[in-house]
């Protein structure tokens, strides 16, 4: 999920060969709902703070990752562990 318009996300999807969904939130409505709008961080434009949220089938957050720097990401092992923990409950 990013503030990029669909066309930009489509190019990124094609370049990466990714099979997951790229949602566009150009107005940042969800960013505001989650308080993760980073104002003016991309050459004056707003972008999202790096965040990952795992949501279960009832729509509840089961795992949340907040980064302290743009270079820091949730590692696949950490994400898979959160998914396994969610599935075993």
């Amino acid at each position, binding site marked *: 999920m990013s503030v*990029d318009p669909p066309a930009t996300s489509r190019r990124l999807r094609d370049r990466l060969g990714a099979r997951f969904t790229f949602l566009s939130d150009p107005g940042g409505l969800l960013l505001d709902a989650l308080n*993760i709008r*980073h104002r003016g961080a991309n050459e004056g434009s707003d972008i999202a703070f790096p*965040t990952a949220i795992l949501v279960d*089938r009832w729509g509840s957050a*089961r795992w949340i990752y907040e980064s*302290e720097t743009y270079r820091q990401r949730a590692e696949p092992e950490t994400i898979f562990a959160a998914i396994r923990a969610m599935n075993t409950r």
Partner: protein
Amino acid sequence: MLWVSWLLVLACYGWFVGGAMGNGPLIGHDEFIHARVPWRVLGLLWLGGGLGLAVLAKRRTLLSATSFGLQVLLVGFFSSYFLQDSFLPDHAVALKVGEAFPSYALLDQDEIVHSSTSNEPREPALYIFYRGDW
């Protein structure tokens, strides 16, 4: 000593490019991704710049002055880039574990609407918010 100073500065550049490409040859991809502040690479960078300054102090030639000027630009750029990106402003996600993910209706990359309401059963999903393509 001039060559050593350049070796250090260029090694950091190689680490940066390698890290960005996912195969850091010198210090490794791990630090690029995991470390909040990559102090090892910054230390090498500043050491290189310091050696360049020492060369200039010892031999005030056009070569050493030009060399140090270039190093100042490179060291300044990388230091600014790494330190600026290492400290995001204080913020806290307005959602706690167990709380409902906000409702939304957004377009995907193919301009198909995806919507979700809080009380509606759905497939479990992982939402990753990233800065966008650049």
